[in-house]
Protein backbone atom coordinates (compact mmCIF):
# COMPACT_ATOMS: atom_id res chain seq x y z
CA UNK A 1 0.00 0.00 0.00
CA UNK A 2 1.39 3.37 -1.00
CA UNK A 3 3.25 4.99 1.95
CA UNK A 4 1.25 2.91 4.45
CA UNK A 5 3.41 0.11 5.82
CA UNK A 6 0.88 -2.15 7.56
CA UNK A 7 0.39 -5.75 6.50
CA UNK A 8 -3.10 -7.24 6.83
CA UNK A 9 -1.91 -9.34 9.76
CA UNK A 10 -0.55 -6.29 11.57
CA UNK A 11 -3.77 -4.41 10.96
CA UNK A 12 -5.79 -7.25 12.48
CA UNK A 13 -3.48 -7.44 15.47
CA UNK A 14 -3.92 -3.73 16.05
CA UNK A 15 -7.70 -3.89 15.74
CA UNK A 16 -7.71 -6.70 18.30
CA UNK A 17 -5.53 -4.67 20.67
CA UNK A 18 -7.97 -1.77 20.43
CA UNK A 19 -10.83 -4.20 20.95
CA UNK A 20 -12.81 -3.62 17.77
CA UNK A 21 -13.74 -5.88 14.88
CA UNK A 22 -13.13 -3.85 11.75
CA UNK A 23 -11.69 -0.64 10.40
CA UNK A 24 -15.22 0.69 9.96
CA UNK A 25 -15.75 0.46 13.72
CA UNK A 26 -13.26 3.31 14.11
CA UNK A 27 -15.75 5.73 12.61
CA UNK A 28 -18.89 5.05 14.65
CA UNK A 29 -18.93 8.65 15.94
CA UNK A 30 -19.71 9.95 12.47
CA UNK A 31 -23.44 10.00 11.75
CA UNK A 32 -24.20 7.13 9.40
CA UNK A 33 -25.68 9.15 6.58
CA UNK A 34 -22.46 11.16 6.21
CA UNK A 35 -20.10 8.22 6.64
CA UNK A 36 -18.03 6.89 3.70
CA UNK A 37 -19.28 9.14 0.89
CA UNK A 38 -18.60 8.29 -2.71
CA UNK A 39 -15.40 9.93 -3.91
CA UNK A 40 -15.18 10.30 -7.63
CA UNK A 41 -11.44 10.22 -8.24
CA UNK A 42 -9.17 8.10 -10.39
CA UNK A 43 -7.31 5.12 -9.04
CA UNK A 44 -3.83 5.44 -7.64
CA UNK A 45 -0.64 5.18 -9.69
CA UNK A 46 2.81 3.78 -9.23
CA UNK A 47 5.78 6.10 -9.08
CA UNK A 48 6.77 5.16 -12.63
CA UNK A 49 3.33 6.04 -13.96
CA UNK A 50 3.01 9.26 -11.97
CA UNK A 51 6.48 10.38 -12.92
CA UNK A 52 5.77 9.87 -16.62
CA UNK A 53 2.46 11.70 -16.42
CA UNK A 54 3.95 14.66 -14.57
CA UNK A 55 6.85 14.88 -16.95
CA UNK A 56 4.43 15.07 -19.84
CA UNK A 57 2.46 17.83 -18.11
CA UNK A 58 5.65 19.76 -17.34
CA UNK A 59 6.69 19.53 -20.94
CA UNK A 60 3.59 21.44 -21.97
CA UNK A 61 5.08 24.45 -20.19
CA UNK A 62 7.69 26.84 -21.47
CA UNK A 63 10.54 26.93 -18.97
CA UNK A 64 12.46 30.18 -18.70
CA UNK A 65 15.57 28.03 -19.03
CA UNK A 66 14.59 27.36 -22.63
CA UNK A 67 14.03 30.96 -23.63
CA UNK A 68 15.71 34.28 -23.26
CA UNK A 69 13.81 35.94 -20.42
CA UNK A 70 13.26 39.70 -20.02
CA UNK A 71 10.30 39.37 -17.69
CA UNK A 72 10.63 40.56 -14.09
CA UNK A 73 8.08 42.73 -12.24
CA UNK A 74 8.64 41.21 -8.84
CA UNK A 75 10.03 37.79 -9.80
CA UNK A 76 13.47 37.48 -11.33
CA UNK A 77 15.35 34.84 -13.25
CA UNK A 78 18.73 34.49 -11.55
CA UNK A 79 21.19 31.63 -11.53
CA UNK A 80 20.74 29.23 -8.61
CA UNK A 81 24.07 27.72 -7.55
CA UNK A 82 24.17 23.90 -7.38
CA UNK A 83 25.12 24.01 -3.70
CA UNK A 84 21.69 25.32 -2.76
CA UNK A 85 19.51 22.49 -3.95
CA UNK A 86 22.01 20.00 -2.64
CA UNK A 87 21.83 21.42 0.87
CA UNK A 88 18.12 22.18 1.11
CA UNK A 89 17.37 18.68 -0.20
CA UNK A 90 18.73 17.23 3.02
CA UNK A 91 15.82 15.56 4.77
CA UNK A 92 17.13 16.86 8.10
CA UNK A 93 16.22 20.34 6.89
CA UNK A 94 13.16 19.98 4.72
CA UNK A 95 11.28 17.26 6.62
CA UNK A 96 11.73 18.94 10.01
CA UNK A 97 8.92 20.77 11.78
CA UNK A 98 9.00 24.27 13.25
CA UNK A 99 11.82 24.29 15.83
CA UNK A 100 9.65 24.30 18.95
CA UNK A 101 12.00 21.74 20.55
CA UNK A 102 15.31 23.60 20.47
CA UNK A 103 17.34 20.69 21.88
CA UNK A 104 16.88 18.80 18.61
CA UNK A 105 16.37 21.71 16.18
CA UNK A 106 19.58 23.72 16.35
CA UNK A 107 20.17 23.24 12.62
CA UNK A 108 17.01 25.10 11.72
CA UNK A 109 17.40 27.63 14.53
CA UNK A 110 20.98 28.60 13.79
CA UNK A 111 20.09 28.73 10.09
CA UNK A 112 17.33 31.25 10.83
CA UNK A 113 19.54 33.25 13.20
CA UNK A 114 22.12 33.56 10.43
CA UNK A 115 19.38 34.46 7.95
CA UNK A 116 18.13 37.23 10.25
CA UNK A 117 21.70 38.50 10.62
CA UNK A 118 22.30 38.47 6.87
CA UNK A 119 19.06 40.33 6.13
CA UNK A 120 19.83 42.91 8.81
CA UNK A 121 23.32 43.45 7.37
CA UNK A 122 22.06 43.60 3.81
CA UNK A 123 19.36 46.17 4.60
CA UNK A 124 21.41 48.14 7.10
CA UNK A 125 18.86 47.52 9.84
CA UNK A 126 19.28 46.34 13.42
CA UNK A 127 16.76 43.51 13.47
CA UNK A 128 15.00 41.07 11.18
CA UNK A 129 12.43 38.33 11.66
CA UNK A 130 12.41 34.75 10.38
CA UNK A 131 10.39 35.85 7.28
CA UNK A 132 6.86 36.34 6.02
CA UNK A 133 5.13 34.58 3.11
CA UNK A 134 6.26 36.92 0.34
CA UNK A 135 6.97 40.53 -0.57
CA UNK A 136 3.30 41.47 -0.69
CA UNK A 137 2.28 40.06 2.68
CA UNK A 138 5.42 41.54 4.25
CA UNK A 139 4.15 44.97 3.07
CA UNK A 140 0.74 44.25 4.59
CA UNK A 141 2.31 43.19 7.89
CA UNK A 142 4.28 46.44 7.92
CA UNK A 143 0.98 48.30 7.57
CA UNK A 144 -0.48 46.34 10.49
CA UNK A 145 2.59 47.13 12.58
CA UNK A 146 2.15 50.83 11.85
CA UNK A 147 -1.53 50.66 12.78
CA UNK A 148 -0.63 49.17 16.17
CA UNK A 149 2.30 51.51 16.69
CA UNK A 150 -0.15 54.42 16.82
CA UNK A 151 -2.85 52.34 18.58
CA UNK A 152 -5.20 52.88 15.70
CA UNK A 153 -5.12 56.64 16.11
CA UNK A 154 -3.41 57.38 12.81
CA UNK A 155 -5.55 55.99 10.05
CA UNK A 156 -3.70 56.73 6.84
CA UNK A 157 -1.15 54.55 5.12
CA UNK A 158 0.40 56.41 2.24
CA UNK A 159 1.64 54.16 -0.54
CA UNK A 160 3.79 55.25 -3.45
CA UNK A 161 2.40 54.48 -6.91
CA UNK A 162 5.87 53.01 -7.44
CA UNK A 163 4.99 50.07 -5.18
CA UNK A 164 4.27 46.82 -7.04
CA UNK A 165 0.50 46.97 -7.78
CA UNK A 166 0.05 43.45 -6.41
CA UNK A 167 1.64 44.48 -3.12
CA UNK A 168 -0.69 47.46 -2.86
CA UNK A 169 -3.64 45.18 -3.61
CA UNK A 170 -2.63 42.77 -0.84
CA UNK A 171 -2.19 45.63 1.62
CA UNK A 172 -5.74 46.62 0.78
CA UNK A 173 -7.03 43.06 1.32
CA UNK A 174 -5.29 42.81 4.69
CA UNK A 175 -6.03 46.23 6.10
CA UNK A 176 -9.54 47.06 4.99
CA UNK A 177 -11.14 45.51 8.06
CA UNK A 178 -8.95 47.47 10.45
CA UNK A 179 -10.90 50.16 12.15
CA UNK A 180 -11.06 53.10 9.75
CA UNK A 181 -7.69 52.49 8.12
CA UNK A 182 -7.37 53.74 4.58
CA UNK A 183 -4.62 53.17 2.12
CA UNK A 184 -3.93 56.21 -0.01
CA UNK A 185 -2.19 55.68 -3.32
CA UNK A 186 -1.83 58.74 -5.55
CA UNK A 187 -3.12 58.01 -9.02
CA UNK A 188 -0.45 57.06 -11.50
CA UNK A 189 -0.07 59.89 -14.02
CA UNK A 190 3.26 59.39 -15.69
CA UNK A 191 6.53 57.78 -14.78
CA UNK A 192 8.10 61.20 -14.21
CA UNK A 193 5.50 61.92 -11.56
CA UNK A 194 6.43 58.89 -9.44
CA UNK A 195 8.92 60.70 -7.23
CA UNK A 196 9.48 61.15 -3.49
CA UNK A 197 8.81 64.90 -3.89
CA UNK A 198 5.29 64.26 -5.15
CA UNK A 199 4.60 61.87 -2.32
CA UNK A 200 5.96 64.18 0.37
CA UNK A 201 3.09 66.66 -0.02
CA UNK A 202 0.57 64.01 0.96
CA UNK A 203 2.04 63.17 4.35
CA UNK A 204 0.02 64.59 7.22
CA UNK A 205 -0.55 64.11 10.96
CA UNK A 206 -3.01 61.29 10.17
CA UNK A 207 -0.32 59.27 8.40
CA UNK A 208 0.84 56.16 10.23
CA UNK A 209 3.24 54.92 7.60
CA UNK A 210 4.66 55.85 4.23
CA UNK A 211 5.56 52.99 1.91
CA UNK A 212 7.93 53.20 -1.05
CA UNK A 213 9.72 50.64 -3.18
CA UNK A 214 13.47 50.66 -3.89
CA UNK A 215 14.13 50.22 -6.77
CA UNK A 216 10.50 51.04 -7.48
CA UNK A 217 8.17 48.99 -9.65
CA UNK A 218 9.49 50.82 -12.73
CA UNK A 219 13.11 50.31 -11.73
CA UNK A 220 13.63 53.90 -10.55
CA UNK A 221 16.12 54.69 -7.81
CA UNK A 222 15.91 57.65 -5.47
CA UNK A 223 17.87 58.63 -2.43
CA UNK A 224 15.15 58.67 0.22
CA UNK A 225 17.32 60.22 2.96
CA UNK A 226 15.65 63.64 2.90
CA UNK A 227 12.27 62.07 2.31
CA UNK A 228 12.72 59.95 5.45
CA UNK A 229 13.29 63.14 7.43
CA UNK A 230 10.05 64.60 6.11
CA UNK A 231 8.18 61.42 7.05
CA UNK A 232 9.66 61.47 10.54
CA UNK A 233 8.95 65.17 10.99
CA UNK A 234 5.27 64.27 10.64
CA UNK A 235 5.72 61.51 13.21
CA UNK A 236 5.03 58.66 10.76
CA UNK A 237 6.94 55.44 10.14
CA UNK A 238 8.91 55.03 6.93
CA UNK A 239 8.88 51.64 5.22
CA UNK A 240 10.86 50.61 2.15
CA UNK A 241 10.22 47.52 0.01
CA UNK A 242 13.52 46.42 -1.50
CA UNK A 243 15.06 44.11 -4.05
CA UNK A 244 17.83 42.29 -2.13
CA UNK A 245 20.12 41.89 -5.13
CA UNK A 246 20.12 45.65 -5.70
CA UNK A 247 21.40 46.08 -2.15
CA UNK A 248 24.62 44.42 -3.24
CA UNK A 249 25.51 47.83 -4.65
CA UNK A 250 23.13 50.41 -3.35
CA UNK A 251 22.90 52.62 -0.33
CA UNK A 252 20.94 50.79 2.36
CA UNK A 253 17.49 51.66 3.67
CA UNK A 254 19.10 51.83 7.11
CA UNK A 255 21.42 54.60 5.95
CA UNK A 256 18.48 56.46 4.51
CA UNK A 257 16.50 56.32 7.74
CA UNK A 258 13.91 53.61 7.09
CA UNK A 259 12.07 52.29 10.16
CA UNK A 260 10.93 49.10 8.46
CA UNK A 261 12.33 47.28 5.44
CA UNK A 262 10.37 44.63 3.61
CA UNK A 263 10.96 42.95 0.30
CA UNK A 264 10.77 39.92 -1.93
CA UNK A 265 13.57 37.47 -1.19
CA UNK A 266 12.95 35.29 -4.26
CA UNK A 267 16.02 36.60 -6.14
CA UNK A 268 18.21 35.06 -3.42
CA UNK A 269 18.37 31.57 -4.88
CA UNK A 270 14.67 30.70 -4.91
CA UNK A 271 13.22 29.26 -8.13
CA UNK A 272 10.50 31.17 -10.00
CA UNK A 273 7.96 28.31 -9.59
CA UNK A 274 5.10 30.27 -11.17
CA UNK A 275 5.10 32.74 -8.29
CA UNK A 276 5.62 30.78 -5.13
CA UNK A 277 6.60 29.88 -2.54
CA UNK A 278 8.77 32.98 -2.20
CA UNK A 279 10.20 34.79 0.80
CA UNK A 280 8.91 37.88 2.60
CA UNK A 281 11.84 39.86 3.97
CA UNK A 282 11.12 41.86 7.10
CA UNK A 283 13.65 44.01 8.97
CA UNK A 284 13.15 46.86 11.40
CA UNK A 285 14.73 49.20 13.88
CA UNK A 286 15.39 47.45 17.15
CA UNK A 287 12.88 49.44 19.17
CA UNK A 288 10.09 48.14 16.94
CA UNK A 289 11.01 44.48 17.33
CA UNK A 290 8.28 43.61 19.82
CA UNK A 291 5.70 44.89 17.39
CA UNK A 292 7.09 42.82 14.51
CA UNK A 293 4.88 39.81 13.80
CA UNK A 294 6.17 36.38 12.89
CA UNK A 295 8.83 34.14 14.31
CA UNK A 296 12.08 35.48 15.69
CA UNK A 297 15.12 33.46 16.74
CA UNK A 298 17.39 34.65 19.52
CA UNK A 299 20.70 33.53 20.96
CA UNK A 300 20.93 31.96 24.41
CA UNK A 301 22.73 29.14 26.24
CA UNK A 302 21.61 25.63 27.14
CA UNK A 303 21.99 24.03 30.56
CA UNK A 304 25.32 22.56 29.51
CA UNK A 305 26.71 26.02 28.84
CA UNK A 306 26.64 25.75 25.06
CA UNK A 307 25.72 28.75 22.94
CA UNK A 308 22.42 27.93 21.30
CA UNK A 309 19.31 29.43 19.69
CA UNK A 310 15.60 29.45 20.49
CA UNK A 311 12.40 30.93 19.14
CA UNK A 312 12.02 34.01 21.29
CA UNK A 313 9.50 36.77 22.00
CA UNK A 314 6.86 34.12 21.36
CA UNK A 315 4.51 35.74 23.85
CA UNK A 316 3.55 38.15 21.02
CA UNK A 317 2.38 35.35 18.76
CA UNK A 318 -1.08 33.98 18.02
CA UNK A 319 -0.64 30.65 19.80
CA UNK A 320 -0.20 32.54 23.08
CA UNK A 321 -1.90 35.91 22.62
CA UNK A 322 -4.76 34.52 20.52
CA UNK A 323 -7.16 37.37 19.67
CA UNK A 324 -4.72 39.95 21.05
CA UNK A 325 -1.91 38.93 18.72
CA UNK A 326 -1.11 41.57 16.12
CA UNK A 327 -1.05 38.99 13.32
CA UNK A 328 -2.36 35.49 12.75
CA UNK A 329 0.87 34.37 11.08
CA UNK A 330 2.01 31.00 12.34
CA UNK A 331 4.55 29.63 9.85
CA UNK A 332 7.53 31.31 8.27
CA UNK A 333 9.03 30.41 4.91
CA UNK A 334 11.63 28.32 6.77
CA UNK A 335 13.20 26.45 3.91
CA UNK A 336 13.26 29.51 1.67
CA UNK A 337 14.86 31.59 4.40
CA UNK A 338 17.50 28.90 4.66
CA UNK A 339 17.91 29.05 0.88
CA UNK A 340 18.49 32.79 1.05
CA UNK A 341 21.00 32.34 3.87
CA UNK A 342 22.95 29.76 1.87
CA UNK A 343 22.83 31.96 -1.23
CA UNK A 344 24.16 35.00 0.62
CA UNK A 345 26.82 32.95 2.43
CA UNK A 346 28.02 31.34 -0.76
CA UNK A 347 28.12 34.50 -2.83
CA UNK A 348 29.38 36.51 0.09
CA UNK A 349 30.48 40.08 -0.17
CA UNK A 350 32.15 39.81 -3.54
CA UNK A 351 29.61 37.53 -5.19
CA UNK A 352 26.66 39.72 -4.32
CA UNK A 353 28.47 42.82 -5.52
CA UNK A 354 29.33 41.01 -8.74
CA UNK A 355 25.83 39.80 -9.50
CA UNK A 356 24.34 43.20 -8.71
CA UNK A 357 26.89 44.86 -10.96
CA UNK A 358 26.23 42.40 -13.79
CA UNK A 359 22.48 43.07 -13.57
CA UNK A 360 23.11 46.81 -13.52
CA UNK A 361 25.54 46.89 -16.44
CA UNK A 362 23.55 44.56 -18.65
CA UNK A 363 20.29 46.40 -17.98
CA UNK A 364 21.96 49.69 -18.91
CA UNK A 365 23.45 48.15 -22.02
CA UNK A 366 19.99 46.87 -22.99
CA UNK A 367 18.35 50.24 -22.27
CA UNK A 368 20.91 52.05 -24.36
CA UNK A 369 20.46 49.66 -27.27
CA UNK A 370 16.66 49.81 -27.08
CA UNK A 371 16.60 53.60 -26.92
CA UNK A 372 18.28 53.63 -30.35
CA UNK A 373 15.55 51.55 -31.99
CA UNK A 374 13.15 53.79 -33.89
CA UNK A 375 9.75 53.93 -32.22
CA UNK A 376 11.04 52.73 -28.85
CA UNK A 377 11.72 55.10 -26.03
CA UNK A 378 13.09 54.41 -22.55
CA UNK A 379 10.84 56.25 -20.09
CA UNK A 380 13.18 56.22 -17.08
CA UNK A 381 14.89 59.57 -16.68
CA UNK A 382 16.37 58.89 -13.22
CA UNK A 383 18.90 56.19 -12.26
CA UNK A 384 17.54 52.66 -12.42
CA UNK A 385 18.82 49.26 -11.34
CA UNK A 386 18.00 46.27 -13.56
CA UNK A 387 14.53 47.10 -14.76
CA UNK A 388 13.14 49.93 -16.88
CA UNK A 389 10.00 50.93 -18.77
CA UNK A 390 9.97 51.29 -22.54
CA UNK A 391 7.31 53.01 -24.64
CA UNK A 392 6.66 50.85 -27.69
CA UNK A 393 5.18 51.63 -31.09
CA UNK A 394 2.59 48.85 -30.82
CA UNK A 395 0.63 47.02 -28.13
CA UNK A 396 3.04 45.08 -25.91
CA UNK A 397 0.97 41.92 -26.20
CA UNK A 398 1.55 41.89 -29.96
CA UNK A 399 5.25 42.55 -29.59
CA UNK A 400 5.56 39.83 -26.98
CA UNK A 401 3.77 37.31 -29.15
CA UNK A 402 6.23 38.07 -31.89
CA UNK A 403 9.19 37.82 -29.51
CA UNK A 404 7.97 34.47 -28.24
CA UNK A 405 8.10 33.09 -31.78
CA UNK A 406 11.80 33.86 -31.61
CA UNK A 407 12.32 32.20 -28.25
CA UNK A 408 12.23 35.40 -26.24
CA UNK A 409 10.01 36.01 -23.23
CA UNK A 410 9.43 39.76 -23.47
CA UNK A 411 8.89 42.18 -20.61
CA UNK A 412 5.67 42.83 -18.73
CA UNK A 413 2.83 44.49 -20.59
CA UNK A 414 2.29 47.26 -18.04
CA UNK A 415 -1.30 47.80 -19.15
CA UNK A 416 -2.09 44.50 -17.42
CA UNK A 417 -1.56 46.22 -14.08
CA UNK A 418 -1.84 49.94 -14.87
CA UNK A 419 -4.46 50.39 -17.58
CA UNK A 420 -3.35 53.94 -18.44
CA UNK A 421 0.08 52.63 -19.44
CA UNK A 422 -0.75 51.41 -22.93
CA UNK A 423 2.12 50.24 -25.14
CA UNK A 424 4.65 50.28 -22.34
CA UNK A 425 6.86 47.30 -21.59
CA UNK A 426 8.67 46.76 -18.30
CA UNK A 427 11.97 45.05 -19.08
CA UNK A 428 14.12 43.21 -16.56
CA UNK A 429 17.71 42.14 -17.19
CA UNK A 430 19.77 39.87 -14.96
CA UNK A 431 23.20 38.22 -15.02
CA UNK A 432 21.64 35.46 -17.12
CA UNK A 433 20.96 37.71 -20.12
CA UNK A 434 24.07 37.55 -22.29
CA UNK A 435 25.09 40.39 -24.55
CA UNK A 436 24.23 38.19 -27.48
CA UNK A 437 20.72 37.56 -26.12
CA UNK A 438 20.24 41.27 -25.51
CA UNK A 439 21.41 42.01 -29.05
CA UNK A 440 18.97 39.42 -30.41
CA UNK A 441 16.16 40.90 -28.36
CA UNK A 442 16.91 44.36 -29.78
CA UNK A 443 17.19 43.02 -33.26
CA UNK A 444 13.74 41.40 -33.10
CA UNK A 445 12.29 44.54 -31.54
CA UNK A 446 13.67 46.60 -34.39
CA UNK A 447 11.96 44.32 -36.87
CA UNK A 448 15.21 43.08 -38.36
CA UNK A 449 14.75 39.35 -38.51
CA UNK A 450 17.49 38.44 -40.92
CA UNK A 451 19.93 35.78 -39.84
CA UNK A 452 17.34 34.49 -37.46
CA UNK A 453 17.69 30.78 -37.12
CA UNK A 454 14.96 29.95 -34.64
Amino acid at each position, binding site marked *: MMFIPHSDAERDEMLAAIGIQSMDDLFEAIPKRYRFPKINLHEGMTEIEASAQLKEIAEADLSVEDVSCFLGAGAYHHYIPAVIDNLISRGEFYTAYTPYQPEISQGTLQGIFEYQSLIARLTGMEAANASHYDGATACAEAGILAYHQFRGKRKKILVSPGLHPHYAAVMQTYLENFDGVHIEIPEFKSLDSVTPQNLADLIDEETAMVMVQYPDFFGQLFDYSEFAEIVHAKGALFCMSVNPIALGLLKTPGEMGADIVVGEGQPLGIPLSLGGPYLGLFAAKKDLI*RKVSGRIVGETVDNRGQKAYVLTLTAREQHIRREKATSNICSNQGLNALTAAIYLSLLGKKGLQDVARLCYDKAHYAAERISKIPGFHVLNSTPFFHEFAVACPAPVSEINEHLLHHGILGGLDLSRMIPSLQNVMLIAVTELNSKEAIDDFCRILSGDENDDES
Partner: protein
Amino acid sequence: MNIIPGFFYSKNDEWVEVKGTKATVGITDFAQNSLSDIVFVEISVSEGDHVEASDLIGTVESVKAASDVYTPVAGVVVAANESVIDNPELINADPFGKAWLIQVENEDGIDTSGLMNAEEYKTYCEGRG
Protein backbone atom coordinates in the same frame (compact mmCIF):
# COMPACT_ATOMS: atom_id res chain seq x y z
CA MET B 1 1.23 35.09 48.09
CA ASN B 2 1.63 38.63 49.28
CA ILE B 3 -1.22 41.15 49.52
CA ILE B 4 -0.78 44.61 51.02
CA PRO B 5 -3.52 45.81 53.37
CA GLY B 6 -4.79 49.28 52.59
CA PHE B 7 -4.24 48.98 48.81
CA PHE B 8 -7.08 48.61 46.34
CA TYR B 9 -7.22 45.81 43.78
CA SER B 10 -8.76 45.21 40.35
CA LYS B 11 -10.06 41.97 38.86
CA ASN B 12 -7.29 42.24 36.29
CA ASP B 13 -4.73 41.99 39.12
CA GLU B 14 -3.58 45.60 39.30
CA TRP B 15 -3.09 47.34 42.66
CA VAL B 16 -3.65 51.00 43.58
CA GLU B 17 -2.19 52.86 46.51
CA VAL B 18 -3.99 56.13 47.23
CA LYS B 19 -2.30 59.08 48.93
CA GLY B 20 -4.44 62.20 48.88
CA THR B 21 -5.17 63.12 45.27
CA LYS B 22 -2.41 60.85 43.98
CA ALA B 23 -2.51 57.15 43.21
CA THR B 24 0.25 54.67 42.36
CA VAL B 25 -0.55 51.71 40.11
CA GLY B 26 1.22 48.37 39.63
CA ILE B 27 0.54 44.67 39.15
CA THR B 28 0.09 42.28 42.05
CA ASP B 29 2.20 39.46 43.41
CA PHE B 30 -0.43 37.02 42.17
CA ALA B 31 -0.07 38.44 38.65
CA GLN B 32 3.73 38.32 38.59
CA ASN B 33 3.67 34.81 39.97
CA SER B 34 1.34 33.48 37.29
CA LEU B 35 3.34 35.21 34.54
CA SER B 36 6.68 33.90 35.92
CA ASP B 37 9.95 35.53 34.79
CA ILE B 38 9.12 38.98 33.42
CA VAL B 39 11.34 39.87 30.48
CA PHE B 40 9.78 43.05 29.18
CA VAL B 41 7.72 45.96 30.41
CA GLU B 42 6.19 48.62 28.23
CA ILE B 43 4.44 51.67 29.62
CA SER B 44 2.38 53.15 26.83
CA VAL B 45 1.28 56.38 28.57
CA SER B 46 3.47 59.30 29.47
CA GLU B 47 3.41 62.26 31.83
CA GLY B 48 0.54 64.60 31.13
CA ASP B 49 -1.73 61.97 29.52
CA HIS B 50 -5.24 61.81 30.86
CA VAL B 51 -6.38 58.26 31.59
CA GLU B 52 -9.81 56.90 32.40
CA ALA B 53 -10.33 53.85 34.60
CA SER B 54 -9.74 50.67 32.54
CA ASP B 55 -7.56 52.43 29.96
CA LEU B 56 -4.60 50.45 28.67
CA ILE B 57 -1.38 51.75 30.21
CA GLY B 58 1.11 49.10 29.20
CA THR B 59 2.15 45.50 28.67
CA VAL B 60 4.06 43.06 30.81
CA GLU B 61 5.66 40.12 29.08
CA SER B 62 7.21 36.87 30.30
CA VAL B 63 8.58 34.04 28.15
CA LYS B 64 5.24 32.29 28.24
CA ALA B 65 2.67 35.08 28.27
CA ALA B 66 2.07 38.73 27.56
CA SER B 67 -0.44 40.61 29.65
CA ASP B 68 -1.98 44.01 29.10
CA VAL B 69 -2.10 46.35 32.10
CA TYR B 70 -5.00 48.76 32.67
CA THR B 71 -5.25 51.58 35.14
CA PRO B 72 -7.99 50.91 37.69
CA VAL B 73 -8.34 54.64 38.43
CA ALA B 74 -8.73 57.81 36.38
CA GLY B 75 -6.49 60.87 36.45
CA VAL B 76 -3.57 62.62 34.83
CA VAL B 77 -0.34 60.64 34.60
CA VAL B 78 2.27 62.42 36.71
CA ALA B 79 5.02 59.77 36.60
CA ALA B 80 5.97 56.56 34.79
CA ASN B 81 8.53 54.23 36.33
CA GLU B 82 11.59 54.20 34.06
CA SER B 83 13.56 51.81 36.23
CA VAL B 84 11.10 48.97 35.81
CA ILE B 85 11.38 49.35 32.04
CA ASP B 86 15.15 48.92 32.33
CA ASN B 87 14.85 46.12 34.90
CA PRO B 88 11.71 44.10 34.18
CA GLU B 89 12.74 41.51 36.81
CA LEU B 90 11.87 44.12 39.46
CA ILE B 91 8.25 43.07 38.99
CA ASN B 92 9.10 39.56 40.15
CA ALA B 93 11.21 40.84 43.04
CA ASP B 94 9.11 43.69 44.41
CA PRO B 95 5.74 44.00 42.67
CA PHE B 96 4.19 46.26 45.33
CA GLY B 97 7.24 48.46 45.85
CA LYS B 98 9.98 49.32 43.38
CA ALA B 99 8.02 47.89 40.48
CA TRP B 100 5.18 50.41 40.50
CA LEU B 101 4.23 51.37 36.95
CA ILE B 102 2.57 54.79 36.93
CA GLN B 103 1.35 57.52 39.24
CA VAL B 104 -1.78 59.48 38.46
CA GLU B 105 -3.24 62.56 40.05
CA ASN B 106 -6.87 63.57 40.17
CA GLU B 107 -7.83 66.84 41.79
CA ASP B 108 -11.39 65.63 42.27
CA GLY B 109 -10.04 62.75 44.32
CA ILE B 110 -9.20 59.18 43.33
CA ASP B 111 -12.30 57.14 42.61
CA THR B 112 -11.79 53.61 43.91
CA SER B 113 -15.41 52.48 43.65
CA GLY B 114 -15.68 49.06 42.07
CA LEU B 115 -12.25 48.00 43.32
CA MET B 116 -11.61 45.33 45.92
CA ASN B 117 -9.93 45.80 49.28
CA ALA B 118 -7.13 43.46 50.41
CA GLU B 119 -9.49 41.01 52.09
CA GLU B 120 -11.79 40.77 49.07
CA TYR B 121 -8.85 40.41 46.72
CA LYS B 122 -7.42 37.60 48.82
CA THR B 123 -10.70 35.68 48.47
CA TYR B 124 -10.75 36.47 44.76
CA CYS B 125 -7.25 35.00 44.29
CA GLU B 126 -7.98 31.90 46.35
CA GLY B 127 -11.04 31.28 44.20
CA ARG B 128 -8.73 30.99 41.20
CA GLY B 129 -6.47 28.42 42.80
